[in-house]
Protein backbone atom coordinates (compact mmCIF):
# COMPACT_ATOMS: atom_id res chain seq x y z
CA UNK A 1 0.00 0.00 0.00
CA UNK A 2 1.31 3.45 -0.87
CA UNK A 3 1.57 6.06 1.84
CA UNK A 4 -0.76 8.31 -0.13
CA UNK A 5 -3.51 5.68 0.10
CA UNK A 6 -3.69 6.07 3.87
CA UNK A 7 -4.10 9.83 3.55
CA UNK A 8 -6.82 9.46 0.96
CA UNK A 9 -8.62 6.76 2.91
CA UNK A 10 -8.69 8.89 6.02
CA UNK A 11 -9.84 11.89 4.02
CA UNK A 12 -12.66 9.82 2.52
CA UNK A 13 -13.73 8.69 5.97
CA UNK A 14 -13.83 12.29 7.18
CA UNK A 15 -16.03 13.46 4.28
CA UNK A 16 -19.36 13.18 6.15
CA UNK A 17 -18.01 15.30 9.01
CA UNK A 18 -16.44 17.82 6.66
CA UNK A 19 -19.76 18.20 4.88
CA UNK A 20 -21.50 18.74 8.18
CA UNK A 21 -19.07 21.50 9.13
CA UNK A 22 -19.48 23.03 5.67
CA UNK A 23 -23.23 23.13 6.19
CA UNK A 24 -22.85 24.95 9.50
CA UNK A 25 -20.85 27.65 7.69
CA UNK A 26 -22.69 27.90 4.37
CA UNK A 27 -25.92 29.44 3.20
CA UNK A 28 -27.21 26.37 1.39
CA UNK A 29 -26.35 22.83 0.42
CA UNK A 30 -24.75 23.63 -2.93
CA UNK A 31 -22.42 26.18 -1.32
CA UNK A 32 -21.54 23.66 1.36
CA UNK A 33 -20.56 21.01 -1.17
CA UNK A 34 -18.54 23.53 -3.18
CA UNK A 35 -16.71 24.42 0.01
CA UNK A 36 -16.13 20.74 0.81
CA UNK A 37 -14.77 20.11 -2.67
CA UNK A 38 -12.46 23.12 -2.49
CA UNK A 39 -11.23 21.84 0.88
CA UNK A 40 -10.49 18.38 -0.53
CA UNK A 41 -8.59 19.87 -3.45
CA UNK A 42 -6.58 22.19 -1.22
CA UNK A 43 -5.84 19.38 1.24
CA UNK A 44 -4.61 17.07 -1.51
CA UNK A 45 -2.37 19.75 -2.96
CA UNK A 46 -0.97 20.65 0.47
CA UNK A 47 -0.77 17.13 1.86
CA UNK A 48 2.99 17.42 2.38
CA UNK A 49 2.25 20.15 4.95
CA UNK A 50 0.26 17.81 7.13
CA UNK A 51 2.38 16.13 9.80
CA UNK A 52 1.58 12.44 10.20
CA UNK A 53 0.78 11.71 13.83
CA UNK A 54 -1.17 14.95 14.25
CA UNK A 55 -4.94 15.10 13.88
CA UNK A 56 -6.01 15.15 10.25
CA UNK A 57 -9.52 16.31 11.14
CA UNK A 58 -8.31 19.52 12.85
CA UNK A 59 -6.00 20.23 9.92
CA UNK A 60 -8.86 19.80 7.43
CA UNK A 61 -11.27 21.90 9.48
CA UNK A 62 -8.71 24.65 9.54
CA UNK A 63 -8.33 24.53 5.76
CA UNK A 64 -12.09 24.62 5.32
CA UNK A 65 -12.49 27.52 7.72
CA UNK A 66 -9.82 29.55 5.93
CA UNK A 67 -11.34 28.89 2.52
CA UNK A 68 -14.75 29.86 3.88
CA UNK A 69 -13.38 33.12 5.28
CA UNK A 70 -11.85 33.93 1.88
CA UNK A 71 -15.01 33.13 -0.08
CA UNK A 72 -17.28 34.79 2.50
CA UNK A 73 -15.30 38.01 2.11
CA UNK A 74 -15.48 37.80 -1.66
CA UNK A 75 -19.23 37.18 -1.40
CA UNK A 76 -19.80 40.19 0.80
CA UNK A 77 -17.89 42.40 -1.64
CA UNK A 78 -19.91 40.98 -4.54
CA UNK A 79 -23.26 41.41 -2.81
CA UNK A 80 -22.54 45.01 -1.96
CA UNK A 81 -22.62 45.68 -5.68
CA UNK A 82 -25.77 43.71 -6.31
CA UNK A 83 -29.39 44.30 -5.42
CA UNK A 84 -30.16 43.06 -1.91
CA UNK A 85 -31.50 39.56 -1.88
CA UNK A 86 -34.69 38.58 -0.14
CA UNK A 87 -33.72 36.39 2.73
CA UNK A 88 -36.25 33.68 2.05
CA UNK A 89 -35.33 33.50 -1.60
CA UNK A 90 -32.60 30.90 -1.25
CA UNK A 91 -34.83 28.38 0.43
CA UNK A 92 -35.63 25.79 -2.19
CA UNK A 93 -33.47 27.54 -4.76
CA UNK A 94 -31.28 24.48 -5.08
CA UNK A 95 -33.54 21.54 -5.96
CA UNK A 96 -31.54 19.31 -3.65
CA UNK A 97 -32.46 21.54 -0.74
CA UNK A 98 -36.11 21.25 -1.57
CA UNK A 99 -35.87 17.49 -1.78
CA UNK A 100 -33.61 16.44 0.99
CA UNK A 101 -33.03 19.23 3.44
CA UNK A 102 -35.35 18.89 6.36
CA UNK A 103 -37.15 21.89 7.68
CA UNK A 104 -35.15 21.50 10.84
CA UNK A 105 -31.89 21.77 8.95
CA UNK A 106 -33.08 24.82 7.04
CA UNK A 107 -34.02 26.52 10.26
CA UNK A 108 -30.68 25.69 11.81
CA UNK A 109 -28.73 26.88 8.75
CA UNK A 110 -30.67 30.08 8.49
CA UNK A 111 -30.18 30.83 12.20
CA UNK A 112 -26.45 30.11 11.93
CA UNK A 113 -26.22 32.39 8.94
CA UNK A 114 -27.45 35.31 10.98
CA UNK A 115 -24.51 35.06 13.35
CA UNK A 116 -21.45 37.16 12.61
CA UNK A 117 -18.75 34.99 11.00
CA UNK A 118 -16.49 35.00 14.05
CA UNK A 119 -19.29 33.72 16.28
CA UNK A 120 -20.60 31.26 13.74
CA UNK A 121 -17.31 29.40 13.37
CA UNK A 122 -16.85 29.05 17.12
CA UNK A 123 -20.43 27.85 17.64
CA UNK A 124 -20.06 25.38 14.76
CA UNK A 125 -16.79 23.93 16.01
CA UNK A 126 -17.74 23.63 19.67
CA UNK A 127 -21.49 23.05 19.79
CA UNK A 128 -21.96 21.08 16.56
CA UNK A 129 -18.58 19.49 15.90
CA UNK A 130 -17.81 18.86 19.55
CA UNK A 131 -14.26 20.27 19.72
CA UNK A 132 -12.98 21.56 23.04
CA UNK A 133 -12.22 25.24 23.72
CA UNK A 134 -8.48 24.58 23.69
CA UNK A 135 -8.60 22.75 20.34
CA UNK A 136 -10.61 25.55 18.77
CA UNK A 137 -8.29 28.21 20.12
CA UNK A 138 -5.37 26.38 18.46
CA UNK A 139 -7.27 25.77 15.25
CA UNK A 140 -8.27 29.42 14.87
CA UNK A 141 -5.13 30.95 16.42
CA UNK A 142 -7.21 32.81 19.00
CA UNK A 143 -6.76 33.25 22.75
CA UNK A 144 -9.01 30.87 24.64
CA UNK A 145 -10.78 33.83 26.30
CA UNK A 146 -11.77 35.16 22.87
CA UNK A 147 -13.13 31.75 21.87
CA UNK A 148 -15.12 31.58 25.07
CA UNK A 149 -16.62 35.08 24.81
CA UNK A 150 -17.56 34.63 21.13
CA UNK A 151 -19.21 31.36 22.03
CA UNK A 152 -21.30 33.05 24.74
CA UNK A 153 -22.50 35.74 22.35
CA UNK A 154 -23.15 33.31 19.51
CA UNK A 155 -25.12 30.75 21.49
CA UNK A 156 -27.13 33.47 23.27
CA UNK A 157 -28.18 34.89 19.89
CA UNK A 158 -28.99 31.38 18.63
CA UNK A 159 -31.21 30.71 21.61
CA UNK A 160 -33.18 33.82 20.71
CA UNK A 161 -33.48 32.65 17.10
CA UNK A 162 -34.21 29.00 17.66
CA UNK A 163 -35.76 28.84 21.09
CA UNK A 164 -34.72 26.44 23.79
CA UNK A 165 -36.48 23.34 22.61
CA UNK A 166 -35.70 21.12 19.67
CA UNK A 167 -39.14 21.60 18.15
CA UNK A 168 -39.91 25.11 19.05
Amino acid at each position, binding site marked *: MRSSDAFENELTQLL*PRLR*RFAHTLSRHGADA*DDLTQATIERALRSRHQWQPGTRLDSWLYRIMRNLWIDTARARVRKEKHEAPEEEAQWIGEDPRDAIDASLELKRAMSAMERLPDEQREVVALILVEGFGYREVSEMLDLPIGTVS*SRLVRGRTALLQLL*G*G*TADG
Partner: protein
Amino acid sequence: MVEDEKFFAWLDGELSPEEAARVEADVATDARLSRLADEHRAMTSGLRHAFGAIEARPVPDRLRIAIDRDEKVVSLAEARAVRAARKAPPVWAQMAALAATLAFGVFAGNAMSGMFTAGPSSPIEAEAGRLVASANLENALYAQLASAPVESGPRVGLTFRDKSGAICRTFEEQAASGLACREGGDWRIRSLFQAPEGQSTDYRMASGPDPQLMEAVDASIDGEPFDAAEEKAAAERGWK
Protein backbone atom coordinates in the same frame (compact mmCIF):
# COMPACT_ATOMS: atom_id res chain seq x y z
CA MET B 1 -23.81 34.74 40.96
CA VAL B 2 -21.97 32.85 38.20
CA GLU B 3 -20.50 34.83 35.36
CA ASP B 4 -21.64 33.91 31.84
CA GLU B 5 -18.40 32.46 30.57
CA LYS B 6 -17.95 30.21 33.57
CA PHE B 7 -21.56 29.08 33.39
CA PHE B 8 -21.18 28.01 29.77
CA ALA B 9 -17.76 26.49 30.34
CA TRP B 10 -19.45 24.36 33.00
CA LEU B 11 -22.25 23.46 30.59
CA ASP B 12 -19.65 22.39 28.01
CA GLY B 13 -17.67 20.30 30.49
CA GLU B 14 -14.64 22.60 30.28
CA LEU B 15 -14.12 23.20 34.03
CA SER B 16 -11.97 21.26 36.46
CA PRO B 17 -13.99 18.91 38.70
CA GLU B 18 -13.66 21.31 41.67
CA GLU B 19 -14.81 24.36 39.73
CA ALA B 20 -17.59 22.38 38.08
CA ALA B 21 -18.89 21.27 41.48
CA ARG B 22 -19.02 24.88 42.66
CA VAL B 23 -20.91 26.10 39.58
CA GLU B 24 -23.25 23.15 39.73
CA ALA B 25 -24.15 23.99 43.32
CA ASP B 26 -24.84 27.62 42.38
CA VAL B 27 -27.01 26.63 39.43
CA ALA B 28 -28.99 24.16 41.53
CA THR B 29 -30.08 26.93 43.86
CA ASP B 30 -30.84 29.47 41.14
CA ALA B 31 -34.08 28.87 39.21
CA ARG B 32 -33.14 31.30 36.45
CA LEU B 33 -29.77 29.61 35.81
CA SER B 34 -31.32 26.14 35.96
CA ARG B 35 -33.84 27.11 33.31
CA LEU B 36 -31.12 28.72 31.18
CA ALA B 37 -29.02 25.55 31.42
CA ASP B 38 -31.98 23.45 30.27
CA GLU B 39 -32.76 25.79 27.38
CA HIS B 40 -29.18 25.80 26.15
CA ARG B 41 -28.87 22.02 26.45
CA ALA B 42 -32.03 21.61 24.38
CA MET B 43 -30.91 24.19 21.83
CA THR B 44 -27.49 22.53 21.42
CA SER B 45 -29.03 19.12 21.10
CA GLY B 46 -31.48 20.42 18.47
CA LEU B 47 -28.60 21.99 16.56
CA ARG B 48 -26.57 18.76 16.64
CA HIS B 49 -29.57 16.79 15.53
CA ALA B 50 -30.31 19.14 12.62
CA PHE B 51 -26.75 19.10 11.28
CA GLY B 52 -26.35 15.42 12.16
CA ALA B 53 -28.72 14.72 9.26
CA ILE B 54 -25.94 15.81 6.90
CA GLU B 55 -23.46 13.37 8.33
CA ALA B 56 -25.91 10.51 7.90
CA ARG B 57 -26.53 11.24 4.22
CA PRO B 58 -24.57 9.69 1.36
CA VAL B 59 -21.63 11.80 0.23
CA PRO B 60 -22.17 13.23 -3.29
CA ASP B 61 -20.15 11.46 -5.98
CA ARG B 62 -18.33 14.60 -7.03
CA LEU B 63 -16.59 14.75 -3.65
CA ARG B 64 -15.38 11.16 -3.85
CA ILE B 65 -14.29 11.75 -7.41
CA ALA B 66 -12.23 14.75 -6.32
CA ILE B 67 -10.21 12.31 -4.20
CA ASP B 68 -10.05 9.56 -6.84
CA ARG B 69 -8.85 11.95 -9.51
CA ASP B 70 -6.05 13.00 -7.29
CA GLU B 71 -4.98 9.43 -6.78
CA LYS B 72 -4.22 9.28 -10.48
CA VAL B 73 -2.16 12.44 -10.32
CA VAL B 74 -0.26 11.06 -7.34
CA SER B 75 0.42 7.90 -9.28
CA LEU B 76 1.96 10.05 -11.95
CA ALA B 77 4.17 11.73 -9.37
CA GLU B 78 5.20 8.32 -8.12
CA ALA B 79 5.91 7.14 -11.64
CA ARG B 80 8.19 10.15 -12.01
CA ALA B 81 9.99 9.26 -8.81
CA VAL B 82 10.52 5.75 -10.10
CA ARG B 83 11.89 7.08 -13.39
CA ALA B 84 14.16 9.52 -11.64
CA ALA B 85 15.47 6.74 -9.42
CA ARG B 86 16.79 4.76 -12.32
CA LYS B 87 18.75 7.20 -14.36
CA ALA B 88 19.24 5.00 -17.40
CA PRO B 89 16.54 2.51 -18.30
CA PRO B 90 17.79 -1.00 -17.61
CA VAL B 91 17.84 -3.51 -20.41
CA TRP B 92 14.62 -5.14 -19.28
CA ALA B 93 12.76 -1.85 -19.63
CA GLN B 94 13.98 -1.43 -23.16
CA MET B 95 12.93 -5.00 -23.82
CA ALA B 96 9.51 -4.25 -22.41
CA ALA B 97 9.18 -1.21 -24.65
CA LEU B 98 10.16 -3.31 -27.63
CA ALA B 99 7.67 -5.97 -26.60
CA ALA B 100 4.93 -3.32 -26.42
CA THR B 101 5.72 -2.21 -29.96
CA LEU B 102 5.62 -5.78 -31.17
CA ALA B 103 2.30 -6.29 -29.44
CA PHE B 104 0.83 -3.38 -31.41
CA GLY B 105 1.87 -5.12 -34.56
CA VAL B 106 0.08 -8.19 -33.39
CA PHE B 107 -3.14 -6.30 -32.61
CA ALA B 108 -3.03 -4.38 -35.82
CA GLY B 109 -2.44 -7.52 -37.80
CA ASN B 110 -5.42 -9.09 -36.12
CA ALA B 111 -3.47 -12.25 -35.61
CA MET B 112 -4.32 -12.74 -31.98
CA SER B 113 -7.51 -14.38 -30.88
CA GLY B 114 -9.33 -12.83 -27.95
CA MET B 115 -10.63 -9.44 -26.99
CA PHE B 116 -8.21 -7.32 -28.98
CA THR B 117 -9.13 -8.73 -32.33
CA ALA B 118 -11.23 -6.39 -34.38
CA GLY B 119 -14.87 -6.65 -33.50
CA PRO B 120 -17.61 -4.84 -31.68
CA SER B 121 -15.94 -5.27 -28.27
CA SER B 122 -12.43 -4.20 -29.24
CA PRO B 123 -11.28 -0.80 -27.97
CA ILE B 124 -9.02 -0.29 -30.99
CA GLU B 125 -9.02 -0.73 -34.70
CA ALA B 126 -6.54 -0.34 -37.51
CA GLU B 127 -7.23 2.41 -39.98
CA ALA B 128 -4.90 3.05 -42.89
CA GLY B 129 -2.10 1.35 -41.03
CA ARG B 130 -2.58 3.33 -37.82
CA LEU B 131 -4.11 2.19 -34.57
CA VAL B 132 -7.05 4.35 -33.59
CA ALA B 133 -9.82 4.16 -31.01
CA SER B 134 -12.83 2.13 -32.03
CA ALA B 135 -16.23 3.84 -32.07
CA ASN B 136 -17.09 3.02 -28.48
CA LEU B 137 -13.78 4.21 -27.07
CA GLU B 138 -13.72 7.18 -29.41
CA ASN B 139 -17.08 8.36 -28.09
CA ALA B 140 -15.83 8.09 -24.54
CA LEU B 141 -12.61 9.94 -25.32
CA TYR B 142 -14.49 12.65 -27.12
CA ALA B 143 -17.40 13.21 -24.77
CA GLN B 144 -16.50 11.97 -21.32
CA LEU B 145 -15.20 14.18 -18.57
CA ALA B 146 -13.27 12.49 -15.79
CA SER B 147 -15.14 14.71 -13.37
CA ALA B 148 -18.42 13.11 -14.51
CA PRO B 149 -17.68 9.42 -15.01
CA VAL B 150 -20.10 6.94 -16.50
CA GLU B 151 -21.52 3.75 -15.11
CA SER B 152 -20.36 1.43 -17.88
CA GLY B 153 -18.07 1.33 -20.85
CA PRO B 154 -14.61 2.87 -21.16
CA ARG B 155 -13.56 5.33 -18.46
CA VAL B 156 -11.40 8.32 -19.12
CA GLY B 157 -8.74 9.20 -16.52
CA LEU B 158 -6.11 11.89 -17.00
CA THR B 159 -6.12 14.52 -19.71
CA PHE B 160 -2.97 16.43 -20.61
CA ARG B 161 -1.01 18.01 -23.43
CA ASP B 162 1.97 16.07 -24.75
CA LYS B 163 5.29 17.50 -25.86
CA SER B 164 4.08 17.87 -29.46
CA GLY B 165 1.11 19.96 -28.25
CA ALA B 166 -1.53 17.30 -28.86
CA ILE B 167 -4.14 16.54 -26.21
CA CYS B 168 -3.87 13.06 -24.78
CA ARG B 169 -6.19 11.12 -22.51
CA THR B 170 -5.79 7.91 -20.57
CA PHE B 171 -8.58 5.38 -20.57
CA GLU B 172 -9.52 2.19 -18.79
CA GLU B 173 -11.41 -0.49 -20.60
CA GLN B 174 -12.71 -3.69 -19.19
CA ALA B 175 -9.58 -5.63 -20.03
CA ALA B 176 -7.09 -2.93 -20.84
CA SER B 177 -5.92 0.58 -20.15
CA GLY B 178 -4.09 2.92 -22.43
CA LEU B 179 -3.23 6.31 -23.74
CA ALA B 180 -4.75 7.98 -26.81
CA CYS B 181 -3.78 11.32 -28.34
CA ARG B 182 -5.71 13.56 -30.70
CA GLU B 183 -4.13 13.46 -34.14
CA GLY B 184 -5.74 14.59 -37.35
CA GLY B 185 -9.26 14.28 -36.01
CA ASP B 186 -8.74 10.77 -34.61
CA TRP B 187 -7.83 9.42 -31.24
CA ARG B 188 -4.61 7.64 -32.03
CA ILE B 189 -3.61 4.87 -29.62
CA ARG B 190 -0.16 5.54 -28.21
CA SER B 191 -0.04 2.83 -25.54
CA LEU B 192 -2.20 -0.07 -24.56
CA PHE B 193 -1.75 -2.34 -21.58
CA GLN B 194 -3.66 -5.46 -20.77
CA ALA B 195 -5.20 -5.54 -17.29
CA PRO B 196 -3.50 -8.03 -14.95
CA GLU B 197 -4.93 -11.52 -15.07
CA GLY B 198 -8.08 -11.85 -12.95
CA GLN B 199 -8.93 -8.14 -12.93
CA SER B 200 -10.48 -7.96 -16.32
CA THR B 201 -14.08 -8.17 -15.17
CA ASP B 202 -13.70 -5.91 -12.20
CA TYR B 203 -11.45 -3.15 -13.35
CA ARG B 204 -13.02 -0.50 -11.21
CA MET B 205 -11.89 -2.32 -8.12
CA ALA B 206 -8.33 -2.48 -9.40
CA SER B 207 -5.87 -0.70 -7.16
CA GLY B 208 -5.42 2.51 -9.12
CA PRO B 209 -4.08 3.00 -12.61
CA ASP B 210 -1.54 0.67 -14.19
CA PRO B 211 1.99 1.85 -13.27
CA GLN B 212 3.09 1.17 -16.85
CA LEU B 213 0.40 3.54 -18.07
CA MET B 214 1.53 6.20 -15.63
CA GLU B 215 5.08 5.82 -16.91
CA ALA B 216 3.83 6.17 -20.47
CA VAL B 217 2.02 9.36 -19.45
CA ASP B 218 5.06 10.71 -17.73
CA ALA B 219 7.24 10.04 -20.77
CA SER B 220 5.04 12.14 -23.04
CA ILE B 221 3.40 14.76 -20.80
CA ASP B 222 4.32 18.42 -21.08
CA GLY B 223 3.66 20.05 -17.69
CA GLU B 224 0.87 18.82 -15.44
CA PRO B 225 -2.38 16.94 -16.08
CA PHE B 226 -5.47 19.08 -16.65
CA ASP B 227 -7.69 19.87 -13.72
CA ALA B 228 -11.49 19.62 -14.06
CA ALA B 229 -11.85 23.16 -15.47
CA GLU B 230 -9.05 22.71 -18.03
CA GLU B 231 -10.48 19.37 -19.07
CA LYS B 232 -13.91 20.92 -19.62
CA ALA B 233 -12.46 23.82 -21.61
CA ALA B 234 -10.48 21.41 -23.81
CA ALA B 235 -13.64 19.38 -24.48
CA GLU B 236 -15.45 22.54 -25.52
CA ARG B 237 -12.66 23.36 -27.96
CA GLY B 238 -12.98 19.87 -29.49
CA TRP B 239 -9.67 18.69 -27.97
CA LYS B 240 -7.58 21.02 -30.09
